[in-house]
């Protein structure tokens, strides 16, 4: 019964272009359409502008240290300016002043930006990959797999990990990369799993999943070709919020001085704190305000992009 009938009165069917080219065009078109929707969101656009500004700011670091700034003076970790008393308030040579051991605040701020990006994006990426895979598997297979991962998520959500890391960090100091990975993994098995599982669950009962099964699709095919593509927009949205939470955790732990990171925004505030300058925080504002503002704005930027994406992902939130 299944003789494939390659008889076409209409002539051999042939696409005008290779299939990958057509798919690429379709992808670009849908990105463009989503961008049009995203652009409508003021808060989302503000977030994008902030992220671009941070990007430029961070990209200026290698340029500055290789051209204008003398590494002996402006190195964020080992630099020292012998020409003045420290901490020095903002001046012509040090636009944002210097820290208690004579290092340039602006240089530290710039130097840290790139790493904050790396930390945030890396750990958010890990979070989202794990969250999507685990959430989808839990939703589709249910039963023991579901129970197991949901209990893990509960534990991660309820367990006070930051205080624990503060205590543990006093003994073993985590360096940058392991910290990013740990944050990513904790995030991935945590709350995001529950959210993405709920989404996968609502996708997996849609009639097009039944239709795929009747077509002969295996479980693997259904998960990879139907469920994940329909969960991914939400994963991407939560990736933005994950960046925020990774950066905040890093700042908190750096402030307590329990991470093995030589320089970061949290570290800058930590330095001011251990030297006792935060007791007179109004007078020595340049020691904490730039870093504090950077953390706040950076986190806010990703949060705002997330809010903007929300309108792309959840069409019901759209105004018109």
């Amino acid at each position: 019964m299944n003789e494939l009938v390659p008889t076409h009165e209409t002539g051999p069917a042939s696409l005008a272009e290779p299939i990958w080219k057509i798919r690429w065009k379709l992808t670009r078109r849908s990105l463009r359409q989503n961008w049009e929707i995203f652009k409508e969101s003021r808060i989302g656009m503000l977030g994008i502008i902030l992220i671009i500004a941070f990007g430029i700011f961070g990209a200026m670091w290698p340029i500055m240290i290789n051209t204008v700034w003398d590494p002996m003076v402006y190195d964020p970790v080992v630099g020292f300016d012998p020409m003045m008393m420290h901490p020095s308030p903002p001046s012509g040579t040090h636009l944002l002043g210097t820290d208690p051991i004579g290092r340039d605040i602006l240089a530290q701020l710039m130097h840290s930006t790139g790493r904050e990006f790396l930390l945030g994006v890396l750990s958010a990426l890990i979070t989202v990959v794990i969250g999507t895979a685990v959430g989808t598997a839990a939703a589709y297979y249910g039963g023991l797999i579901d129970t197991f991962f949901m209990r893990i998520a509960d534990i991660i959500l309820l367990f006070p990990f930051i205080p624990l890391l503060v205590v543990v960090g006093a003994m073993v100091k985590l360096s940058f990369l392991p910290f990013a990975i740990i944050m990513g993994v904790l995030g991935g098995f945590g709350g995001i799993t529950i959210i993405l599982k709920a989404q996968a669950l609502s996708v997996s009962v849609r009639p097009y999943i039944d239709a795929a099964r009747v077509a002969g699709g295996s479980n693997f095919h259904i998960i990879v070709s139907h469920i994940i593509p329909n969960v991914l927009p939400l994963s991407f949205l939560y990736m933005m919020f994950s960046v925020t939470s990774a950066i905040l955790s890093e700042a908190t732990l750096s402030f307590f001085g329990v991470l093995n990171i030589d320089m970061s925004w949290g570290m800058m505030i930590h330095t001011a704190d251990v030297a006792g300058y935060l007791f007179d925080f109004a007078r020595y504002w340049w020691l904490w305000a730039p870093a504090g503002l950077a953390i706040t704005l950076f986190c806010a930027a990703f949060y705002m992009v997330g809010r903007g994406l929300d309108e792309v992902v959840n069409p019901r939130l759209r105004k018109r």
Partner: protein
Amino acid sequence: MALPAATESKDVILEVSNLSKYYPVNQGFFTRQKSLLHAVDNVSFQVNRGEVLGLVGESGCGKTTTGRLIVRLATPTSGRILIEDTDVAEIKGQDMMEFRQKVQMIFQDPYESLDPRMTIFDIVAEPLNVNGIGTFEEREAQVEEMLSLVGLAPPSAFLFRFPHELSGGQRQRVAIARALVVRPSFVVADEPTSMLDVSIRTGIMKLMAQLREDLGISYLYITHDLAVARYLCDRIAVMYLGKIVELGNSEDIVKRPLHPYTKALISAVPVPDPAIDRPLPNIKGGVSKPIDPKPRCRFYDRCPESADSCAEAENPELRDIGGGHLVACHLL
């Protein structure tokens, strides 16, 4: 339209015997007591090769559930389904692939049965892809041929569009193309027109009839509309709360309904035939759900012709009263 029924012919493509599907339901939040919803309850029927059997009944009577059991989207509580002499419950592994190509289903809601993130090309080609049929060029040719066949011409205008860019009628045509692209021999069509505008229903119905002629497919055609069933089907099975109450040739069912429920259904349909003598509709009350039903006739509570004896008697069996016309009622 309706061809003479081939009830005498031995070429049976689908045989359903004593099929039941019960769903456990919770009666209220605090009760631990488990109740059973008899969605499909001891149903038997056959579909012959090349035949269209209509399954007609009100919303919630178990039509979709019957269809889902046949294509193995759900497993029966009891009973047996044979398709081309193969027991559907026992199909495994490689045979499953063959089964999926042989038996297809068209779903009720074309707005929900197409993945919104796939192009029309990918949707129609999916059954070929997952079963590893043909090269890319062959698949593409088949998809284009199928799209023209269901009236989406020229195919190139539809291939790389998304479902949301199509009208409801066009989507249902895509869904039909996708079901038929593997050349199935049996198709469960679950109310393919019920979610569509009245104006485009006729087009889809004509298409279904045409495809049956061209491709020689047997259908189980599910609908709640007797007029549609009469137009498309050779025989009609009338379902009420999980049970088949009457089964016979379409013309017999429409012109000489015997079961009180079928009579009531007919009287509710605007049949454009003044020759039909229609009794006044007088069913009492609305449909309930068949949760832990009493063993008597399911229609008793609403039946205008019920006798006192019906209250005590067991549920009536489906009996042949001559000429392949089956009715389940004590008074006949």
